[in-house]
């Protein structure tokens, strides 16, 4: 069930659009911000609130790679594997994460500390390779730098 706060926040978004359903992306973000991800139950609650079918809402939810339809760890690592980062060696970072954390794309560490996901671009090609953890962008990384970065996320 949606909490009263979630419901209130979503209702506040609805008048900003010509149709109720148009608030669905905001609604997904609001719920994900509080719960970390969108469970089937959350999906059902939001769909009901906005007058959408599950098919319609899940079509939107699954389209956006930053709406999580599976549980994620406390920190989400978004590693760019797009062309600039690929050229300058994103794969070394990926390999380092695989070795240090034991996870590859789409996986979460057993202690639920990190989830690793690919991302197509973080808009910082001049500082490739880059990755983002939660809201923080980390640039010009090599495995040693990455190791230091990881330490600051517990």
């Amino acid at each position, binding site marked *: 069930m949606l909490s009263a706060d979630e419901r209130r926040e979503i209702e506040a978004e609805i008048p900003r659009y*010509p*149709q109720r359903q148009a608030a669905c992306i905001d609604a997904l973000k609001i719920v994900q911000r509080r719960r970390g991800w969108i469970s089937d139950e959350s999906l059902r609650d939001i769909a009901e609130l906005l007058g959408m*079918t*599950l*098919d*319609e809402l*899940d*079509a939107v939810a*699954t*389209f*956006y*790679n930053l709406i999580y339809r599976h549980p994620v760890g406390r920190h989400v690592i978004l590693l760019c594997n797009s062309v600039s980062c690929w050229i300058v060696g994103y794969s070394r970072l990926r390999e380092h994460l695989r070795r240090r954390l034991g996870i590859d794309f789409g996986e979460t560490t057993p202690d639920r500390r990190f989830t690793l996901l690919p991302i197509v671009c973080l808009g910082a090609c001049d500082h490739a390779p880059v990755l983002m953890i939660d809201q923080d962008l980390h640039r010009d990384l090599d495995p040693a730098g990455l190791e230091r970065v990881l330490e600051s996320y517990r």
Partner: protein
Amino acid sequence: MATIYVDDRPCRVDPQQNLLHVCLSLGFNLPYFCWHPALGSVGACRQCAVKLFRDAHDRRGKLVMACMTPVADGARISLADPDALAFRAGIIEGMMHNHPHDCPVCDEGGECHLQDMTVMTGHDYRRYSFPKRTFRNQYLGPLVNHEMNRCIQCYRCVRFYREYAGGRDFNVFGIRNLVYFGRYQDGVLENEFAGNLDEVCPTGVFTDATHKRHYTRKWDLQFAPSICIHCGVGCNLSPGERYGLLRRIVNRYHQDLNSYFLCDRGRYGYEFVNSESRLRQARLGIAAGKWQSLAAQPAAAWLGKLLAAGDVIGIGSPRASLEANYALRLAVGPRRFFAGVSDVELRLLRLAADLLRRQPAPTLREMESADAVLVLGEDVTNTAPRMALSLRQAVRQQPLAELEPLKIPVWLDHAAREAAQERRGPFYIATPAATRLDDIAAETWHAAPGELARLGFAVARVLDESAPAVADLPPPVQALAGRIAAALSSARRPLVVSGLACRSAALLEASANIALALRRSRQDHARLAIAVPEANSLGLALLDPRPLSEAAGAEALIVLENDLYRRASASWVDELLAGERRLIALDCLEHPTTRRASLVLPAAAWSEDEGTFVNYEGRAQRYFAACPPPGEIQSSWRWLRDAMREAGREAAAGWQSLDDLLAGLARDLPALAPVLNAAPPADFRMAGARIPRQPHRYSGRTAILANLDVSEPPPPPDPDSPLAYSMEGNPDQPPAALLPFAWAPGWNSYQAWNKFQEEIYGPLRGGNPGVLLLAPEPRPAGDFFRNVPPPLAGRDGEWLLLPLYHIFGSEMLSRYAPAIRQLSPAPYLALSAADAGSLGLHAGENVALWLDGRAITLSLKIRPDLPPGCAGVPAGLEALPALELPAWSRIERGHG
């Protein structure tokens, strides 16, 4: 018309269209995927790239997507340009990366648009050597099979299902190279037109799940031009047969009617033909429940003797051909020929025919272009399903008219839909209960049929002062009438849709008054459509049968392709059949009436038969056999002819073919003479040859019966049509009424219809098949109907019981198809929550429904949409007795 130059060849084309549409109309082979004649252009697949040149001197040009590029007068394009060829080959190669190449085990194989386009572009060698993405497939119900790995992401399915058909339980999920078309979770697709995904999908993601159980490749099927038997719309079908089994139905394009789409009842109801309940042998009842098989000749002689004795009456059928009904009428005499429908239904059919003589009915294509619609009383999706799909398109008309200043062409589908947003044209629905079109309606109103008629009369009155006034109309209903009248009168092509579902003459009269009022105010394009219940309801009525209730008293009774227990109360039928009276039943399926018959004659099923149906427009359309009837089964009219021959009746004794019968019919009933032109006669030949029912690749014909005889038998004769049960014959395009299937060189899939049309999405070459039998009389109009029903007086302790229609379940024949049966509802009694509460009843409880002093126990279903004081039961279910509804009934708590 505009002139464009295609590879330097000047061509005259429609200036309103896009380059792909006109190139295909011109007959060029330009590959495409996402574009569809009825769905328009979205530019998603990039397959139809052509070179567009600035002028005659420009040799470089630029690549454009033909489907997204409007025709411009003088435009120079090239299909054969090497860059365009390479681009198109590259697109296919990309699409084929993930395609499983499982054509040998794919039901689409051999009629796959993706195969055709791959061959057309010349992509024949796979360079991609990496893993392919794979998906889990879903269970989508008994009608549609799902195999997502074959998907090429053209988005046609989701555009058809959601945008065209209004379904909301299907969508596209994910992104990038993991795009999934399906449902949120496994489950039966809810939309009544889901089966069209089979034809809309360019490859084998969605295929016919019923066909899969008795699968045959397209090239091995024997086809016929046919007309759907499962409702009164008259959609054109292409049934396919092999080894005596009807294997599947696909759409047969008709510009005015079904165009590219069918409803699921029409597509999947066919399996009744293969049912265990088929009657295959003539049989004589010798004692209660005991029968003795009879050969054809003695069976006909038995009936002939009765006919000769003279005291025989006949009961016709709204699902039997005009020809079979006429043969029965001739056998028993016009005064002894009775309608195989209830008296109320017959009266309404006559009224509908009279209204068609005043003004022609709109075609489905015309309904799509209506810009204001009132549906009065009819649950169209469940009684005339394909009509509902057309009505759904009508709400787009007003927003589309607003596109003109934006310079957005109608075919530019997503731009047009974006511009329209959620705006819809005026669409009003006044019905007894909720319908599947309510989601597009500006307003809906649920009331008892008499009240709906009063609303209709009130609308007419607002439009025209000389129409009768409606006394004591509650102010909210009067206000609704005003809003409806305003919407209709300000439209250019207003449409009123009604039908026979409510069994109310007042409803039809009210609808006719509205149409008349609109035309009197010079809205010449105002139209009235009346949905009729069955494939030949109007044909039966045009033979002028006597009311069923007057059928009594004869020594013997011939019932043609009809179950009387669906038409009248069991007690009435039992009485009719009581005593020493002989009952002769002709039908293809076993049912309660055939079980009581003294003599049963096995009749050809419609897919094995040739005849004429008259649809809701009064359009006579001929259907032809996909295979000859097996064994001793023959057409009903041939049984009747044989009997008449035995009885020494000159008129029919000489009938050798359907044409002989039709000639007699035209002489006897000159008003029906145009029926001769519904299709060319049996002696029609093209370059001296018949028209083949089998594709040119039909395999195994020399081996198919080798277990019986090593020498190949000649094809079965067909005296009734110019078609041949053979792959041999004239390969050219026959007249549209005789076109069994669509197949053209390079175009093996359903997309081949492009090659048979005068213009894409236009008429088939040679004109649209069928003839209108009810041409309006020269003097127009007629008068307003003046019998406004009084307000409904509720009765204490009684409920007005209404029929609730189900696309799957209410029609008899399709219920013999296992997949349709699976989707049919169990019997129930529906009440609104308030009414159930007043009786202290809960959903799922057993309730006793009292009608005519007898109780039926039913499970209670809560339908919040039912008007107060009204109850509903599913119409036409075999488990329920035939009820003449609406009727007053008592409801009590049941037992058990």
